[in-house]
């Protein structure tokens, strides 16, 4: 294990990479990810041993039996039954050592979780993630908050095409398939900020379908959930934000987005607490004024194929500034 990490570090150093590696499968931070990592390490060493032995035999054969003047004609050997049996059994025996821990890990990572697990439903959309906390009754998007050390069970499905939900450091991926629900379960073992992204080709912006996972302390997670359960902020009278709310209400925004008490669209991400998120456009850009402005003006330019098209007639710059003020008030 340690040796492999050393090899890896050396390889990375040689290639000039430093890290950190936010999506590395080799830096697990949950029971699920550790189980697959341990298994991979196991298989890796078997594979490495076989590699060394077989390639060495090949190289030795090539050097030792290369053509030299005066070498007598080779003996025409046709085969050897015992050797055939030996090199049939040897790989089969090695495979037993791979297969047994494999099957054990398959069942250990099959998505079973205790009844008190935090339950989250993940719905893949082209190209963003919807998260519903069924027990808490709250819905958010693209940034998943989880408590550290607690079992989590994630139910995964899709609203359109097949996606694949993947946070490498917390566990292996499962496909998000319309009409089917898949489960993964894990227990994150350290707080932090993890990233993931869609792993099944899902159309034009497959490469842009990313997500963040914030693993927080129990109390931090509770505080976040409380805030999310609260109503949407009401902008102060006469301010730019209130004007933004008016723009929001009279524009196409309401058709697709939900802000609790204001609109109830379900096509796009829920914006009730959009200002509490650190990124927009499924983890693509920081949640700041300039990115919000270009996103509202022309989302497909930032994310090819995005169904949030340019509005007709286009919003004025003043409208957009007001909208941003409103969105930024939605903490």
């Amino acid at each position, binding site marked *: 294990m340690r040796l492999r990490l050393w090899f890896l570090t050396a390889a990375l150093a040689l290639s000039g990479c430093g890290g950190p590696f936010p999506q590395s499968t080799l830096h697990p931070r949950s029971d699920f990810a550790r189980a697959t990592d341990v298994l991979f390490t196991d298989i890796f060493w078997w594979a490495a041993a076989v590699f060394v032995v077989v390639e060495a035999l090949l190289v030795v*054969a090539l050097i030792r039996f290369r053509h030299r003047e005066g070498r007598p004609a080779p003996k025409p050997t046709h085969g050897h039954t015992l050797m055939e049996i030996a090199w049939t059994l040897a790989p089969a025996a090695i495979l037993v050592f791979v297969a047994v821990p494999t099957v054990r890990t398959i069942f250990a990572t099959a998505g079973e979780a205790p009844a008190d697990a935090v339950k989250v439903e993940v719905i893949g959309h082209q190209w963003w993630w919807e998260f519903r906390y069924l027990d808490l009754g709250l819905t958010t998007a693209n940034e998943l908050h989880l408590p550290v050390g607690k079992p989590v069970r994630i139910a995964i499905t899709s609203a359109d095409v097949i996606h694949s939900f993947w946070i490498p450091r917390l566990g292996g991926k499962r496909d998000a398939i319309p009409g089917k629900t898949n489960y993964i379960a894990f227990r994150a073992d350290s707080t932090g900020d993890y990233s993931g*992204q869609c792993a099944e080709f899902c159309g034009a912006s497959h490469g842009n379908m990313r997500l963040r996972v914030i693993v927080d302390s129990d109390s931090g997670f509770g505080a976040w959930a409380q805030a999310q359960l609260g109503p949407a902020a009401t902008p102060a009278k006469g301010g730019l934000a209130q004007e933004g709310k008016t723009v929001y209400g009279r524009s196409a925004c309401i058709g697709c987005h939900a802000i609790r008490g204001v609109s109830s669209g379900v096509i796009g991400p829920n914006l009730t607490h959009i200002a509490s998120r650190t990124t927009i456009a499924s983890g693509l850009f920081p949640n700041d004024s300039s990115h919000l402005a270009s996103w509202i003006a022309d989302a497909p330019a930032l994310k090819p194929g995005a169904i949030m098209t340019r509005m007709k007639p286009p919003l004025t710059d003043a409208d957009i500034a007001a909208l941003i003020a409103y969105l930024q008030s939605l903490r």
Partner: protein
Amino acid sequence: MKSWLTTTDHKRIGLLYFWTAFSFFLIGGVEALFIRAQLAQPNGHLVTAETYNQLFTMHGTTMVFLALMPLSASFFNYIVPLQIGARDVAFPRLNAFSYWVFLLGGLFLNASWLVGPLFHAGRLNVAPDGGWFGYANLTERQFSPGPNIDFWLLGLQILGISSLAAGFNFIVTILNLRAPGMKMMRVPVFTWMTLVTQFLVITAFPVITVGLVFLMFDRFFGTHFYVSQSGATPILWQHLFWLFGHPEVYILILPAMGIVSDVLPTFARKPLFGYTVVVYSGVLIGFMGWGVWSHHMFSVGLGPIADSVFSATTMLIAVPTGVKIFNWIATLWGGDIRGTTALHFAVGFIAMFIIGGLSGVTHASPPTDLQQTDTYYVVAHIHYVLFGGTIMGLFAGIYYWWPKMTGRLLSETLGKWHFWLQFVGMNVAFFPMHLIGLLGMPRRVYTYAPELGVSDLNLLSTIGAFLIALSILVFVVNLLRSRTHGQRAGNDPWGGATLEWSIPSPPPVYNFSVIPTVANRLPRWKTEHHEPMRDPPAAPPGPIHVPGGSWWPMLAAFGLPILALAPLTHTLWLAFVGAAVLLAGIFLWAFEPFEV
């Protein structure tokens, strides 16, 4: 010119296959270079997301269906009849039909790069963009409204007909046209692997055809074979596709294994070690290839029981594969190895295929596969198998048999340059991909964030891809140079053991002046049991009837793309024209006088 268009000579058709497939190989390679150039740095913007998706879809589709399979077919055509001592394949005109259907299907698919304006697409390229695996339901009309996927599903159906026709042809050829005395266990391993491959073709292609017909019905007639809202499931496509797709992997690799099994003994001056075991393990791989398809679907959620079973069947395939590798090494052991370019490539095949096989074991294990599937780790794996394996094997075949096919040797100096550039290039290109994948970069993404920490590895990989391109350039020079400057090959430049080396290079149209009688497995070698056979005389003792050419296979072949144009353009009368052309071609072909 006319004689090439109407030819039914397996040797000419073999050369047509070679040049056509090699051209598609270059196109697929250029697509790969675009992909690598885009990924050379994070947030690359050489091409748009849409174009990138077309590039990787067409790279995969082209390499599998238009380059590797038909390059193997080029050797099936040229070499198999020579290895079994036949004058031609069993159905020469069907053979011509296969070629023309392949060519037209390939052109049909690639036309999609240029015909956007005809479909009012607002862009030049409407190439397929759903991946070579075309997962439903992304490929449904709802999510892919353009003609892109139509080109793909119609093009693949055309190509399937070509493969099926060739499959039946070669099975009949190998079973029925062997020279007297050539029992099955005296058949050269390349021909044996061709036979296994063709059985896989005729059983696997109907499966993908069913999948494609369902998809076509969904897209054109509003059926719901893959639509979950109607009670179906898009997973059906995955089962059908991989039920075809995994045997397809063996369709791609078994011919190369056959080539290696013929090249190694020739240059080690030693019979293939464990001929029987190598043949039977090839047959076994062919059978077992049918029981592993769901290992492409471990993240689909088929349940722990199914995952365990498919994991076990997949790991078991490593056994016959390992057996082959050990037998190849044992063939070299104790030999008198001459380091020709062909041998370099054959050994390169073994060395690289081992890496692909071992990384394959890591994702035969479902839990680790959950981290690896759909990442660059798998891209590394398939390229070690299909580039390090199949392409290295095919190049071994080219350097080995080119003298037979053209009468001229390729330059050994340029050949070594080609080999080493390609060997280094492929490892620089594909090895870093293992790490890129383990560090969390998914495949089929047109862009990635610098924060992933894989930028330098990606740049390295891109450099490797261009090294490969350079090596292919050296090969092209070698190929063209050999036409005028290549050393004359004579009957047998290598001292080969099998029948193809007993006749002139290139062989006369009738191949064998006298059909040889075969008494053992290595007829042209002296072993402890027998003396070498006497080669057939230079001139035939009597006139040999050779059938003339025919236009009708080509005419029939033209009917298929016309038929495909009907749904593509929503023009009903084209369907009748296409059917009429196809039927007219078949009719004229069937009633063509036997003696021309």
